[in-house]
């Protein structure tokens, strides 16, 4: 298997740039979140949907959407984060606010259309699961500046290191903010609602 290589050095550099950007260009946001001004996170992607159709970002991000990159072989972190995002969507639904949730696999070799569909259905009936060719997944990951790397040495039960942040993305304006793992469903719901009040 050919791992997607963003080396450790690249990761460290990306983290350093992230920190720098954070300190110099973060503007206070009324939504009280970690909005990073001027960053180019997100953009066009082409992936394969749960129905096996090729879709673009415009096809799947039709409303404010939480976007997460992970892999289904991961038995606890990815399900926890996906369940948390689903929970945020349900909380907003109770307030009459409609948002989308998307899970993008960074393990397209094992995460077939069917596997990704089963995985996402588990958390929210409307959660969209996306996979694709290794090239499509790599391009989407690059656009969103996420990191993933296949651990070498095991052809069948290999593990994948991956970023765990969740992005809040709007159909017209794109990236709004991101949430770290320790953000609660309540916080995500509140901040998302705030951005929707501002941007829509």
């Amino acid at each position: 298997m050919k791992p997607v290589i963003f080396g450790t050095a690249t990761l460290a550099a990306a983290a350093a740039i992230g920190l720098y950007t954070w300190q110099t260009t973060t503007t206070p946001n009324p939504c009280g979140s970690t909005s990073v001004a001027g960053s180019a996170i997100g953009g066009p992607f082409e992936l394969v949907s749960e129905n096996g159709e090729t879709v673009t970002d415009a096809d799947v991000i039709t409303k404010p959407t939480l976007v997460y990159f992970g892999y289904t072989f991961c038995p606890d972190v990815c399900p926890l984060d996906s369940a948390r995002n689903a929970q945020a969507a349900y909380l907003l639904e109770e307030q009459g606010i409609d948002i989308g949730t998307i899970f993008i696999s960074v393990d397209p070799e094992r995460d077939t259309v069917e596997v990704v569909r089963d995985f996402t259905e588990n958390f929210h009936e409307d959660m969209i699961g996306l996979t694709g060719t290794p090239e499509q997944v790599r391009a989407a990951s690059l656009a969103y500046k996420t990191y993933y790397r296949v651990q070498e040495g095991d052809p069948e039960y290999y593990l994948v290191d991956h970023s765990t942040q969740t992005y809040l993305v709007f159909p017209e304006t794109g990236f709004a903010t991101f949430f770290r793992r320790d953000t609660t469903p309540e916080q995500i719901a509140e901040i998302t609602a705030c951005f929707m009040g501002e941007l829509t």
Partner: protein
Amino acid sequence: MKMNTKTLVIAALLASLSATAQAESTLTIENPKAFATPATAMSGGGFMQITNTGPTDDALIGIQADFPRVELHTTEFTDGVARMMHVDDIAIPAGETVALEPGGLHIMFMGLNGDPLEEGETIPATLIFKNAGEIAVTFDVVKRDMAHSH
């Protein structure tokens, strides 16, 4: 079967061995559980709390269960990147409780191959400790609690 003298000696020896093991390391396993998985899942996680009430440190050094691959795992986080990895042992220090829980230490059941973990099922397994030896446990497969909070 009739026990001959040799069998009796071995039985006595085993009894004394297990008594010694228990005197050295008293381990309590609580709430062994695994979350139900989707039909096509390839892996599942096992969780529990292990308490060492004895005076001697111990360590979980292995697990046996009926899957193509079962391993002791942990997940570490660096700058928001999750890295799951195999560990050779999990220290269970004297007087402490070690939790295997989502997002950290876990048992990794791999190769489900179309036989998912279903709610209500149980997974018989044998934990292997450095001092206490083998301890049988049964993981209950439960539905994932969706209303969790961090």
